[in-house]
Every structure is written in structure tokens, then in C-alpha cells.
């Protein structure tokens, strides 16, 4: 309880000082690691952030003091759902950047989300990914089959619904399963780090962002290039996921911890490989259908795929 009292005392002094001199710049120190982040955020919008600090309604201050009591509106009101979209443009961009460039040793949830999980990022990244995969797959198939006389272009619109089902299922059901599993293990083993369901959804949603440029680059009809892209994107987003969830399971039984992290990576890899295999035709296997004269005189036309 002592650290909490210290925080309250500091806040009182700061409020008194600010009342005396409202134009002073304020720096709030949450944790030693996050000082640069806070200052960076403050510098971008000094006016609004200072007013919020004065009134004590700044999100980071409030959530540091009242972590867990933030969403106080009842769930049938619109305001309850507005708390999940309480992000600014620069915050979304920072979270995307954090998911693509993993900082070794830093936890994505602690560093970027900081008790303010949003649903904007996961939802729209998934929507963009669905359409990117469908459009890129269509374009890639078009270029691969371009020269052939028997080829007739089809838009393949059905694949959009399949892509949507797959990606949204992955982005919501896997976090649900993982959250349930972590809650269950939490009851058995005391963990320091535990994540709420929304924070897990947030991490998964933002970790899918790397697949958007990957899907665009998958248009290139070279098998080697495609597989290098798969491995590269898997390393980047997989490492973000591992660094997020390793602290939550490392106190557990060694085998269970490794199995959990392994399953997370495996499912992530399966999504990438599955999308590549289903939406993008293989480039080298498509030869024009040869006509083989059979022994008894009838011709056999073999289909290429």
C-alpha cells in the first residue's frame, strides 16, 4: 500500500503546483522504463495532455491508479463500448509499429497497451487483411495464368467470405482459448503477469498486421520469395507473441510453458501457410495441359492442377 500512497501524495503536489502555475510543462513518471514513451506522448499534444493531467482525467494516470476499475459504465450502454475505442491516431500507429518491430525484452502489452486495450486495431486490421488476401490472391492467380489461351479470368468472390471467416475466427477464438487456458493455469500456479481477454485480443489483432504487406508481396510468383516472406513475417510477429506470453507461463511447469508457447507459434504459422496455400496458386506447377495420345487411339488430356 505504501507505493500507492506515495503516488497519491505526488499527484496532490503536482496538482497544487499546476494550479499555481498552469503553463508549466508536466512530466509524469509511471515506471522507469516508460519515461521516454510518456514524454514523447506529452510532446505531441501538450495542450490537451496538460489539461487532462490537471483535471486528473488523463487516461494513463487514471489507469495506473484505478487499474481494473476503468470500464465502469454498464454493458448495455453505448459508453461502455466507447471505452474500447478510446485511442488516438498516434496510439494506433505506435501499436502497429510495436507489433512489427519487436523490442527485445519489452512486453508489447505493458509497453504499448498499458491498460487501454482497444478493439479498433484488431477489427480493422483483420478487415484489411481479409480483403488484402482476397485481392492479392486474385491478382496473383491472374498474373500466373495470364498467357494461357484457355484461361478465363474469374473474380473468385466466394473466397472473400472464406478469408473473413478464417481470419476473424483466428483473431477471436484463439485468444479466447488462450485466455481460458491462462485463467485455468492461474488458478493452479500463482503468476505475476496475467492478461485480460481484451488485451490478448489486442495483441493478436496487432500481430496480424505484418501479414498485410506480406500478402501484397505474395503476388510475386516465386516460391522461394513466398516462403522467405512467410518465415520472415512469422519471426517478427511470432516473437512479439512469444515475448508477450512467455512471462505469463514461465512460472508454470516447464513442459506446459513450452507447449503453450509452441502452440501459439504453431497456430500463427498455420494461418500464414494455410492462407498462402489456399488463396495463392502455386506458380511453377502450371504447365499447359498436354495432350497425350493413348495406345488405343483416344487422346487423354491431363489437367494441370
Amino acid at each position, binding site marked *: 500500500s505504501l507505493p500507492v500512497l506515495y503516488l497519491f501524495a505526488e499527484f496532490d503536489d503536482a496538482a497544487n503546483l499546476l494550479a499555481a502555475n498552469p503553463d508549466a510543462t508536466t512530466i509524469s513518471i509511471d515506471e522507469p522504463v516508460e519515461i521516454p514513451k510518456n514524454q514523447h506522448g506529452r510532446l505531441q*499534444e501538450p495542450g490537451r495532455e496538460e489539461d487532462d493531467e490537471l483535471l486528473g482525467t488523463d487516461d494513463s494516470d487514471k489507469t495506473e491508479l484505478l487499474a481494473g476499475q476503468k470500464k465502469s459504465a454498464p454493458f448495455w450502454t453505448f459508453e461502455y463500448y466507447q471505452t474500447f475505442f478510446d485511442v488516438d*491516431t498516434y496510439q494506433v500507429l505506435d501499436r502497429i509499429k510495436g507489433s512489427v518491430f519487436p523490442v527485445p525484452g519489452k512486453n508489447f502489452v505493458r509497453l504499448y497497451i498499458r491498460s487501454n486495450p482497444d478493439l479498433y486495431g484488431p477489427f480493422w486490421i483483420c478487415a484489411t487483411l481479409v480483403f488484402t488476401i482476397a485481392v492479392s490472391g486474385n491478382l496473383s492467380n491472374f498474373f500466373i495464368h495470364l498467357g494461357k489461351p484457355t484461361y478465363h479470368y474469374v*473474380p473468385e*468472390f*466466394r473466397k472473400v467470405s472464406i478469408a473473413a471467416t478464417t481470419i476473424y475466427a483466428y483473431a477471436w477464438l484463439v485468444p479466447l482459448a488462450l485466455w481460458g487456458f491462462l485463467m485455468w493455469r492461474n488458478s493452479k500456479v500463482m503468476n505475476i503477469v496475467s492478461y485480460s481477454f481484451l488485451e490478448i485480443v489486442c495483441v493478436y489483432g496487432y500481430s496480424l498486421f505484418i501479414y498485410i504487406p506480406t500478402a501484397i508481396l505474395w503476388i510475386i510468383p516465386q516460391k522461394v520469395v513466398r516462403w522467405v516472406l512467410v518465415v520472415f513475417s512469422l519471426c517478427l510477429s511470432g516473437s512479439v507473441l512469444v515475448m508477450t506470453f512467455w512471462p505469463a507461463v514461465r512460472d508454470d511447469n516447464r513442459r506446459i510453458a513450452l507447449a503453450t508457447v509452441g502452440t501459439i507459434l504453431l497456430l500463427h504459422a498455420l494461418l500464414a501457410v494455410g492462407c498462402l496455400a489456399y488463396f495463392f496458386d502455386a506458380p511453377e506447377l502450371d504447365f499447359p495441359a498436354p495432350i497425350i495420345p493413348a495406345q488405343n487411339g483416344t487422346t487423354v488430356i491431363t489437367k494441370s492442377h
Partner: protein
Amino acid sequence: FSGLADVSISQDIPVEGEITVPVGSHSPDEDYSTLDEPVRDTIMRDLKAVGKKFVHVMYPRKSSALLRDWDLWGPLVLCVSLALMLQGGSADSKDDGGPQFAEVFVLIWFGAVVITLNSKLLGGTISFFQSLCVLGYCVLPLTVAMLVCRLVLLAGAGTASFLIRLLVVVAMFGWSTLASTAFLADSQPPNRRALVVYPIFLFYFVISWMILTFTPQ
């Protein structure tokens, strides 16, 4: 109030007037009673309102007509005509073809609803139906693009026709996005404007893709 103590009301002042107070709703009713007018007037009034909004979309200016007097007739007409024009796409099997009527319809309306919800959840001040109205009306340039594409495809389906279609669709996509952004972006707080504009961009991009990839039988 001290000065009023000296006021006395003389009993010689005549008091006259009407006791019955006209109820407020009667007089507006006489001006706007639409029950007795010919049907043609009713239809023409709505058509003129829709037409005026079409003009506002094609020449986006800061006018509040689109927002204040929202209606959903225009979006319905545009959506249905776009979905009808996207029919007749070719397919070897049913699964590979272009979008069906229901798919286009659901995509446009569901997409517009989701974008509206998104902008309201991010703290926008625009009302639900106003936003739907704007998003629906701004499909007009893309419907025009679809019409042009079908006409161009009647002439031929080669590379030249594809380039013309590409140019037209890209131009109309830009026009749609700019028009709807001009109407919708002001209702958002400035630090979240990009978060609201991006889904609108995605929405019109998907519709443009459907238009561009339309191939007739």
C-alpha cells in the same frame, strides 16, 4: 422589485382579446398538409430532394443539406442499381464468379453500418442515419463508373478497354472517398480523423475492386 409597490392597476383599462389560444399545431398543418395534394407533387418533392443531394455529392461543398435532411432513398436506389449491374458476371462454376446481388447489397449496407458505428464509437458527433445517408450517396460516382465500365465492355474486352476502365474506376474511387470525407471528417475530433477516414477508404476500395474485376460472359 421595490419599484412595483407603487404600481396600481386602474380599473378603467379595458381588457379584451381572444380567450381561446390557437393550438400551435393547427397553423403549420394548414401550410404543410400533404394529405390533399396530388400524388405527383409528393413524388416530385422527394425526387427533387434526392436529386439535390446527388448534385451535392458530385460537387462536394461544405453544405449541410446532405446532413440535415437525410434520406435513404438515394442510397437504396444506388445500391440496388449497382448490385443489378454487377450481375451477369461470368463463372465456370458458381463458386468462382463475381459477387451475387445479395452479396453486394449486404456488403454495402453492412459496411456502411459498421463504418458509422466505428465513427460513433470513436467519439463522432454525427448521427447514425446522417452518416448512413452520406456514405450511401457517395456511392454515386462508383455507380457512374460501373455504368461506364459496362458500356466500355460492350465495345470490347482487350487491354485498351481495361486501361480505360482502370482509369475511370480509380478516378471515381478518389471522388467518392474525397466527397464522403469532406462531409464526415468534420464531425470527428482532430486527433482521430485518420482513424475514421481509413475505413471509408477501405469500403470504397472494395466496391471499386468489385467494379473493376467485373467480367461479362
